[in-house]
């Protein structure tokens, strides 16, 4: 132990090296623009003119001078195993198409994507592009999105190929144009043809507003009452009795008639008409039609038994790759276009088709999902990101992404023969799908949209989901009292957010 200092210095160096390795950036950090994103010049950021450094490693040379644009996938579709290779292929094609930008994709599982993205933003490490993202994902990061209007103006981006209402859909007060339409997902009924055939019941109508002709040949208005009756006839217990029979045993149900699959109270409320939990003054409200939809569902769970309630939700006979419907023991669901995809319906052992949404009090409302890609304010290269976005949404390339995510094109010019190609790609052996239902459904989209912004978005969502879980699992709940309590609690949340 002659000298302590050399050892100590060595240790300090090792520790410093470790810290540097752990916390430091890459060896060749990109030149970060210090100006505000909107002020940065696209040519400076996108098109470096200097030649590759002679000392750069040969393998790094192809990408070393490119601007890195990170694309975050996880807030919506795109995280399924099958969706990953085609997205990577899309990135490779983009990178091969030019030499200014290196697109880097980050696919994060949806369960952790929200936390991951928030952490990246907070750490000053925000990705540039995020998507596909729906309204819900977007509003979870309210205030974090870049207004695209200056870029649309700057690059004369042509919006004429989109429905103006859909463009407006992405305009947010005090925040600007937060997206350009990419994919839309109308909603409709999907029904199990085999179960209808087994029960001897005619299929639901494939045209919005058309009547349903019952098993006796009588025309019935296709509304909630007719749907309820049909759903009860398709709900069957272990003894073969349906839910209209006095001998029906609700403790031994083996097949259900109906479900608004994979949606929340706002989505179910919208089945009876568009609405919002927020009134024009920013106060909490429960629209009457939503309350009626919730009561109808509650009775469907616990009184009429045609909808799987909480206890039945975990039953083995309702499990399938695409949730309860794909189990083959659920006759009808209301769901969006994103469900008509191989992962949900590709391997089911029954025949199915699409049908129109029924009316409630004479009005049909088919809620709409719409996805886009957003650019975050924290993106260091917004112009480069907009260039990537333009590529992704271009008429030439958007179909590649639409095929991956199962969306219907927002571009009007691409809608005409979209379903023929989609059918051929995803369901080549099925030739009878009623695609007209999907096209028609666009005309009945909900306005305001059921996923619209609410104060304290996540906290509000949490509260109404708790309300819903309680009803789904409590047969003797005081429905009116619970609704009143929900409204009072939402008001508290809204007040706190002011």
């Amino acid at each position, binding site marked *: 132990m002659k000298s302590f200092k050399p050892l100590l210095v060595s240790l300090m160096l090792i520790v410093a090296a470790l810290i540097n390795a752990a916390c430091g950036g890459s060896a060749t950090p990109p030149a970060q623009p210090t100006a505000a994103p909107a002020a940065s010049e696209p040519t400076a950021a996108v098109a470096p003119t200097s030649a590759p450094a002679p000392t750069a490693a040969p393998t790094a040379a192809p990408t070393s001078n490119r601007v890195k644009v990170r694309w975050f996938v996880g807030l919506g579709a795109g995280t399924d195993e099958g969706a990953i290779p085609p997205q990577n292929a899309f990135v490779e094609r983009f990178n091969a198409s030019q030499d200014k930008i290196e697109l880097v994709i980050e696919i994060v599982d949806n369960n952790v994507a929200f936390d991951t993205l928030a952490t990246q933003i*907070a750490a000053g490490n925000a990705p540039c592009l995020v998507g596909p993202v729906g309204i819900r994902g977007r509003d979870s990061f309210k205030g974090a999105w870049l207004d695209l209007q200056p870029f649309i103006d700057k690059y004369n981006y042509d919006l004429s190929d989109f429905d103006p209402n859909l463009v407006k859909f992405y305009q947010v007060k005090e925040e600007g144009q937060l997206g350009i339409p990419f994919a839309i997902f109308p909603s409709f009924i999907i029904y199990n043809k085999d179960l209808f055939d087994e029960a001897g019941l005619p299929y639901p109508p494939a045209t919005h507003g058309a009547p349903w002709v019952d098993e006796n040949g009588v025309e019935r208005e296709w509304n909630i009452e007719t749907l309820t009756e049909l759903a009860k006839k398709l709900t069957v217990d272990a003894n073969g009795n349906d839910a209209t029979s006095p001998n029906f045993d609700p403790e031994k149900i083996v097949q259900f008639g109906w479900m608004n699959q994979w949606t929340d109270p706002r989505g179910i409320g919208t089945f009876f008409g568009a609405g919002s939990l927020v009134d024009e003054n920013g106060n909490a409200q429960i629209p009457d039609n939503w309350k009626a939809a919730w009561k109808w569902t509650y009775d469907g769970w616990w009184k009429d038994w045609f909808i799987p309630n909480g206890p039945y939700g975990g039953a083995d006979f309702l499990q399938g790759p695409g949730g309860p419907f794909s189990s083959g023991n659920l006759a009808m669901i209301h769901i969006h276009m994103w469900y008509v995809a191989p992962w949900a319906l590709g391997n089911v052992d029954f025949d199915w088709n699409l049908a129109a949404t029924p009316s409630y009090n004479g009005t049909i409302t088919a809620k709409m999902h719409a996805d886009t890609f957003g650019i975050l304010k924290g993106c260091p290269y917004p112009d480069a990101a907009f260039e990537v976005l333009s590529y992704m949404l271009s008429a030439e390339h958007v179909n590649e992404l639409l095929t991956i995510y199962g969306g219907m094109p927002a571009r009007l010019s691409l809608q005409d023969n979209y379903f023929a190609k989609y059918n051929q790609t995803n369901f080549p052996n099925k030739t009878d799908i009623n695609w007209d239902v999907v096209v028609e459904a666009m005309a009945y989209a909900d306005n305001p949209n059921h996923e619209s912004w609410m104060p304290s978005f996540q906290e509000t969502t949490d509260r109404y989901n708790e309300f819903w*879980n309680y009803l789904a699992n409590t047969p003797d709940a005081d429905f009116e009292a619970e609704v009143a309590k929900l409204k009072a609690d939402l008001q508290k949340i809204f007040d706190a957010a002011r």
Partner: protein
Amino acid sequence: MAPLPELSSVLRSRTAATPRRKLSKLEKKEIRWGLFFISPWLIGFLLFYLLPMLASFGFSLYDFNPAVPDQARFVGFANWQRALFQDAEVWLSLRRTLHFAAISLPISLLFALFLAVLLNSEHVLGKSIYRTLFYMPTMIPLVATVLIWNGVLNEQTGWINVIIERLTGIRATGTQGLRWLADPNLVYYAYTMFGLWGVGNAMIIFLAGLQGVPSELYEAAQIDGASWFQRLIFITIPLITPVIFYQLVLGVIGSLQYFLAPFVLNGGTGFPEGMTRFFMVYFYKQSFTFFSMGYGATLAWLMLIIAMIITIVLFGTSRFWVFYAGEER
């Protein structure tokens, strides 16, 4: 290398010397070497524990949403005021946590002790096999354990309900059956059952404690005519109270941090009826779902303070019931 002085002499020199004498060159060198050898831990502690803790206290004084960090603003002790006086859910979640701990902790400790006593018995054959078997579930990741139990306790098809129904004729399955994870009256017992699968660690520590009890005490008691139960109550339990105390402290802290099972099972929604919205679940929701990072940091500090108070109280009571070998009273 100079020989190291005995620890006792160093301690004496630290505690008994008055006034404080100047350290010799050798002692200074030893201190430097001591610091050198513990420096990796010290650096790790500073970088990954102390600094983040201090930063989190700083966050607790801000209204901070990580999604929009540029909108963070200093709010002083407003988050603390909200947590302590305005947000009823804070105290409700703490009450649920303590309620759950009051059910699960005694059951877990008694079950671990029961197993340890059984496996320490001279009358059990194949003790090593049993020890391995009881310890094995500890090796399974907790998430997997929770998911397995979720299936076992399924109200429609879980084999516990199916067995109960077949053996007793009571309708245990279905909407009117035993809804372990959905009934507010049963859910804490169901969660306690998950925990029992991980009782192997506690069992091993109890076993080590039991094996440290001097056998001559049992022999003397046997000669005096003490029964098995009397030997357990008057010899075994008092002599393993340090182990019980250790397990209790760890158990209480673990219960206060209870999070994973409710998060895996229901995403932290608090289902059923908010019963599983424990303190740490609420903390998580505030921090990572609602992105109220400043308020979340306040809740984390509040939990630290509560855990410290409970631990201090436990240590305070320990002198009345924990007996250390060789201790004079």
